[in-house]
């Protein structure tokens, strides 16, 4: 059997000077070889590992026989955003983790093959989908991130008139404001959105639900509502110095770079502080994204400060490796204590303390404990806090019936995604707290099934 095919990448020393995509995708030959490794299991474990249950052996077998159009069709039956998922899904935790080849060997590169198919279709020109017969039912989708786009696509395919309400000026949610260009080119998100528009979905940008229209209004005007507003509220650490000039939430830093294109300032109007010594606090994908953006903006040194060890970092291995290759410094088992100020309220450094791992905590990971007297200062003029987000309460401003947890996430029936309000489903980070693109898409799909049933049969699946 051939070995797992590597995917070409921009060299680290080149890519740190640009925002172009790092991974370059398979050639047709590489894809064919990689596809040939799939055993086409009778009971494919990989499909069970996929939150949207893509028929993985189904699409790979079509690549084997060279029928790429059919491969794309199989993919799109269960996934409206294959070019996105092929790039940002943590396949190593999902489909590829379950691949039987992985037991003795390396698993089939399912994500890379998915990306290959989606890119093939895009280069060729995505065929315009036929509009289904209208049912006369109206559905409102609040938020245009992965959960909302998926729910909208599935509901539009079922013939319902779908309107997406997006708070920002661009469609895509975290795909456009959060994930950087070098990991997910924005033109790809645009094309996937075009596909959804062709399905007949009406899109309203600059609509902050909870302010311009209330949830109650949407319930009256539409037959059903899906809430996919994400987890957009940045968390801070609550340490001294977080309001100094030069301290950003990862959300703000990434939004300036990705959505507002601050890396092209002054060609684009939105500025950003570039910094010489940048410290990013956190160990997730968002921390990696922020660090790598800061490097590309021209910082001399970018370091990640994370309180646990390498093993516990929640970011994808691939992203950690990419960051290391690019020269990001990892200060592990290190925790910020306070941010130090210069004379003009600006950041000059971060006082950190060394940590060691103690007994496992509730999450099963070993709890980091500060080592007394080990404080030291890291020089910094920019500090980016990437320790997580929580759901945005604005949407609920006028809806008292919607039940939420003390952490601000929306309570749903996990089978149906129905909230405490009949006819209103929710999914994605707004329900789970910060998670992955694909789990949000899975939730959007489930919710679309529920909503479809609810409006065509006139009842909740709970009944």
């Amino acid at each position, binding site marked *: 059997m051939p070995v797992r095919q590597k995917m070409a990448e921009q060299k680290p020393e080149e890519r740190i000077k640009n925002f172009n995509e790092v991974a370059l995708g398979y050639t047709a030959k590489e894809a064919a070889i990689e596809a040939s490794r799939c055993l086409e299991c009778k009971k494919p474990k990989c499909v069970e590992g996929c939150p949207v249950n893509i028929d993985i052996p189904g699409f790979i077998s079509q690549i084997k026989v060279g029928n790429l159009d059919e491969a794309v069709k199989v993919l799109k039956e269960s996934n409206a955003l294959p070019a996105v998922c092929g790039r940002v899904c943590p396949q190593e935790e999902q489909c590829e983790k379950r691949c039987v080849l992985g037991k003795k060997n390396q698993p089939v590169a399912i994500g890379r093959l998915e990306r290959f198919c989606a890119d093939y279709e895009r280069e060729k020109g995505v065929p315009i989908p036929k509009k289904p017969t209208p049912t006369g039912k109206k559905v409102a989708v609040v938020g245009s991130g992965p959960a909302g786009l998926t729910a909208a696509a599935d509901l539009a395919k079922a013939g319902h008139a779908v309107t997406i309400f997006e*708070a*920002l*000026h661009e469609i895509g949610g975290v795909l456009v*404001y959060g994930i950087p260009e070098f990991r997910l080119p924005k033109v790809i998100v645009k094309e996937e959105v075009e596909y959804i528009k062709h399905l007949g979905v009406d899109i*309203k*940008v*600059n*609509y*902050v639900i909870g*302010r*311009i*229209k209330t949830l109650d209004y949407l319930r009256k005007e539409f037959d059903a509502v899906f809430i996919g507003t994400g987890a*957009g*509220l*940045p968390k*801070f650490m609550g340490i001294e110095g*977080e*309001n100094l*000039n030069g301290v*950003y*939430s990862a*959300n*703000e830093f990434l*939004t*300036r770079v990705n*959505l*507002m*294109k601050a890396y092209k*300032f*002054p*060609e*684009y*109007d*939105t*500025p950003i*502080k570039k910094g010489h010594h940048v410290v990013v606090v956190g160990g997730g994908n968002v921390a990696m994204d922020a660090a790598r953006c800061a490097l590309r903006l021209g910082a001399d040194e970018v370091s990640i400060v994370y309180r646990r060890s390498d093993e516990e970092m929640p970011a994808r291995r691939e992203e950690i490796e990419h960051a290391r290759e690019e020269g990001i410094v990892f200060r592990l088992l290190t925790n910020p204590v306070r941010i130090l100020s210069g004379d*003009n*309220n600006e950041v000059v450094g971060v006082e950190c303390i060394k940590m060691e791992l103690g007994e496992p905590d509730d999450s099963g990971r070993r709890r980091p404990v500060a080592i007394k007297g080990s404080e030291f200062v890291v020089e910094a003029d920019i500090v980016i806090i990437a320790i997580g987000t929580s759901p*945005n*309460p*604005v949407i609920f401003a006028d809806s008292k019936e919607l039940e939420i947890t003390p952490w601000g996430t929306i309570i749903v029936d996990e089978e149906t995604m129905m909230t405490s309000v009949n006819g209103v489903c929710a999914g994605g980070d707004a329900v789970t707290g910060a998670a992955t693109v694909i789990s949000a898409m899975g939730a959007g799909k489930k919710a679309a099934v529920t909503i479809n049933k609810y409006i065509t049969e006139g009842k909740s699946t709970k009944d």
Partner: protein
Amino acid sequence: MPYRILEKRELVPNTYLMKIEAQDVAKAAKAGQFIILRIDERGERIPLTIADYDPNEGHVTIIFQIMGKTTKQLSKMSEGDSIEDFAGPLGTPSDIEKLGTVILVGGGVGIAPIYPQARAYREAGNYVISIIGARSADLLILEDEMAAVSDELYVATDDGSKGHHGFVTDIVKEILDSGRDIARIVVIGPPIMMKVAAGVTKPYGVETIVSLNPIMIDGTGMCGGCRVSVGGEAKFACIDGPEFDASKVDFDLLMSRLSLYHSEEKKSAEEYEHRCCEGECKCR
């Protein structure tokens, strides 16, 4: 969906009024709220407080002073042109109820957001005392409009060219010293003016509210760039505000954070001027 400029007027030098066609924003808007606009694809998102709104006609009024590149570019647009993005209403509306006598203080372009508040306080049955100020008489905006919605109107100018020679806060102090029963004071203007006002009213124990204008991007709580310190706690002006209890606001922090991008703003404005002179825009 682009948003059309229905009317444009230069109120005083460098300060413009625009009526923007935005049906749903106009229907939902309340006093104290703001909008965020982006002129075009390359534009920055800037927050502006709503100066007026007409739910029947479907338009929202903004008043802005030329400060940097975006406001300069906006000032060069004409009636009939369109703005790419106009999101709103944002922020928590003012909590307006019948309280008795209320003082409304507006400084400079801050008179614009004070106007709908004065109107709303009066409609709620309050006795409205308005105090408006500017550097000089020729920079004073909305005097007639303010007179129409106030029971008493006072004017102050820094150079004495109109009304009281001095600051708006001098008049506030005078009224408070006179022993009149004041239920609430609302102050909107440059941060330094709001800071001074907070200091003036504090000894009297009269509830004083300010509307803050920190740097913002999304206006929905997502970026946290607009965080301000209120009573020692970090608050997001876009969702927790923009109005806060003046006695608790750390104005020095606000002013320091507002100055963060001064050098970039200057660069952006210069580049824009340069492009202008090469004939790429409509400045001539």
